[in-house]
């Protein structure tokens, strides 16, 4: 329990202390320190879970499904903090952000980490909602950090769309609580996930089905599912780059995690009725639509961060589809994809941060010749995009391959659409990538000081996961697969 408290509350302490720190240098290091503490706590927690299997109490619940996401979240938080320290110092020196706003930045960075970790570890569905809404509130001022008209517009859109979405999710949560009160004797337990999961068969199926529609639309807005995705590319392109990395790598995952937790309850409640798979079918539909639409939009992007924002929508669509498909194989693929996508996408955004720093713009047309100007950044971007496009031997290839196999078994004709979408996304990304990496160097383009350690770490991990999944992780993923789909894969 101590490990859990360190993991979750180190960032909260950071969020409260950092506004008081005036020195930018010190704040950057403190930000890193709090993230490192949180990661250390999560690793300690993971070791405990490896022995105990799961941990429940004091309103928290840790099982195989969320422990790997907790470690992942803390890890991406730390590497992003490593990137953010010199990057934001540079931004501040350029005069785009005042020193006061940097204090807001660091405080909200930690506040965001706190809400993410709280959402993952809590056992209470109401607290889950509060935490996800808190994540919106923490990041909305970060998206508009530069105070340009564009960034204010992006932040307003983000605020309104996610606010409305999350309000619908609250309505869904109220309905779930209502169903629980009818079924359970002790109604104060009605939002406790573990209780609900154990008693899922007794929940009123019709109420749960209606609730799931609201929950999927609500949390789906945060996942970035089409047609509720409009905030995502804007927020990714206008916010500071470390925040884009956090949004893509963590927030989308946590929102999807919430959807899947609810799907587990709804599946249990509907198991005995004739509409048993309705939650899965809804997720498949939304997922496939997002996957295809985002793939198409990749072509016409001119802003590099917008482009990768659309790529995130595409991958979140794929994961939603995987969880909707259900069955052990697809669920395993979805869980693995959450992990490798998050690592790869945050690595890409960090590289993009350096690339835009070199070129002095986010416009794809003006980023040229990266590999000759600064080989580390050029290769980082190239390898990152190769990984995200699903090439072997990277981990995304593994998860996409597993998903294609699962689709082949259950819905053979959908495999065609999936392959088509993957090819489309691949072509869309490489069309833009090639000139950026290899093109002619514009005059006067100079290399910058870039710390590529986070990128190498992330891509190295994704590479290793593509070759072989370590035994403990495979066991966790398998255990989580069992929890979600009802049967083991391994």
């Amino acid at each position: 329990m101590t490990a859990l408290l360190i993991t979750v509350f180190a960032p909260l302490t950071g969020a409260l202390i950092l506004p008081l720190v005036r020195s930018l240098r010190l704040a950057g290091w403190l930000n890193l320190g709090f993230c490192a503490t949180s990661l250390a706590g999560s690793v300690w927690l993971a070791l405990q879970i490896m022995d105990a299997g799961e941990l429940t109490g004091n309103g928290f619940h840790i099982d195989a499904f969320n422990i790997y996401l907790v470690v992942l979240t803390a890890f991406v938080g730390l590497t992003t903090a490593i990137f953010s320290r010199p990057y934001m110092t540079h931004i501040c020196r350029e005069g785009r952000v005042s020193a006061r706003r940097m204090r807001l930045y660091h405080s909200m960075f930690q506040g965001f980490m706190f809400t993410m970790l709280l959402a993952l570890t809590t056992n209470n569905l109401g607290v889950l909602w509060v935490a996800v809404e808190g994540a919106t509130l923490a990041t909305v001022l970060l998206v508009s950090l530069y105070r340009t008209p564009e960034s204010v517009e992006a932040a307003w859109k983000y605020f309104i769309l996610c606010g409305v979405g999350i309000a619908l999710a609250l309505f869904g949560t109220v309905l779930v609580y209502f169903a629980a009160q009818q079924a359970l004797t002790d109604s104060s337990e009605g939002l406790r996930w573990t209780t609900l999961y154990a008693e899922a068969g007794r929940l009123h199926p019709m109420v749960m089905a209606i609730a799931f529609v609201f929950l999927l639309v609500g949390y789906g807005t945060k996942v970035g599912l089409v047609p509720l995705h409009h905030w995502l590319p804007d927020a990714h392109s206008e916010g500071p780059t470390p925040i884009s990395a956090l949004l893509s790598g963590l927030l989308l995952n946590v929102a999807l995690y919430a959807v899947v937790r609810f799907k587990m309850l709804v599946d249990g409640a509907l198991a005995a009725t004739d509409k048993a798979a309705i939650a899965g079918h809804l997720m498949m539909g939304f997922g496939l639509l997002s996957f295809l639409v985002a793939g198409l939009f990749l072509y016409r992007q001119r802003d590099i961060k917008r482009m990768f924002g659309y790529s995130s929508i595409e991958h979140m669509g794929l994961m939603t589809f995987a969880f909707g498909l259900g069955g052990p194989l697809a669920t395993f693929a979805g869980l693995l994809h959450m992990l490798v996508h998050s690592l790869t996408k945050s690595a890409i955004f960090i590289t993009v941060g350096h690339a835009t720093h070199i070129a002095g713009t986010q416009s794809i047309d003006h980023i040229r010749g990266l590999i000759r100007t600064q080989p580390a950044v050029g290769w980082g971007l190239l390898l990152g995009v190769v990984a995200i496009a699903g090439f072997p031997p990277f981990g995304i290839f593994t998860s996409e391959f597993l998903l294609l196999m699962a689709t082949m078994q259950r819905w053979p004709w959908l495999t065609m659409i999936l392959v088509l979408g993957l090819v489309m996304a691949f072509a869309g990304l490489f069309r833009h990538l090639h000139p950026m990496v290899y093109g002619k160097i514009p005059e006067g383009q100079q290399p910058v000081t870039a710390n590529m350690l986070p990128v190498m770490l992330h891509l190295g991990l994704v590479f290793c996961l593509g070759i072989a999944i370590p035994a403990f992780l495979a066991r966790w993923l398998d255990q989580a697969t069992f929890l979600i789909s009802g049967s083991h894969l391994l």
Partner: protein
Amino acid sequence: MNLTHLTLLEQAVFVLAALVLFLSFSLLAQARLLAGIHIFAWQGGVLALATGLIAATSDEPHLFISAALTFGLKALTIPWMLHRLVRRLELERHADPLQHPALVMMAGAALVIFSYWVVAPIEQLELAGIRNILSISLAVVLLGLLIMVTRRQAVTQVIGFMSMENGLFLAAVAATQGMPLVVELGIAFDVLVAAVLFGVFFLHISESIDSLNVDRLNRLSTREDDGV
């Protein structure tokens, strides 16, 4: 459902719920900003009263806390903050009329029918009263959404957003005797922070586009259209 079987207090709750819905409609029709803020405050007050009545009929003492919280937040603090902002931005005389009032009101009525249709399958639970309140609160949520869609003013959009929150609160209180206290406090905190942030945004938006007409926030969408 036979209303006469219910106690007087329960019937009063129904009346108040209907009043909340009515106030949502008047928000939808109201063009002037200040009048809109006042209606919103009234809606918060009615909601707090309904919560208080439910607290009195059921033995859930923590509902009194949420009633007080709702009154303080939705009927006093947030309207006061909005009021102050409107005065600061000199928008007192500003009106944000609807484009097609008749059409919008028809759409609002359709949304109410739709909400009853969505909740209808819960029939077999023999909880007709709760079903009614769930339909009303869903209708208030959807009307809030409609307000946000049809208005151009950032302030009216926020009022729509907050009245959505009212609908959610009505559902939570009437159908489930309120969420557990810790959740309720968390939600109240989130709403308060959201209200403060909205205030900050009004200032940023009016700085960057010299008005609060969010239709003019379109740089990013035009940029997307330019891309080939």
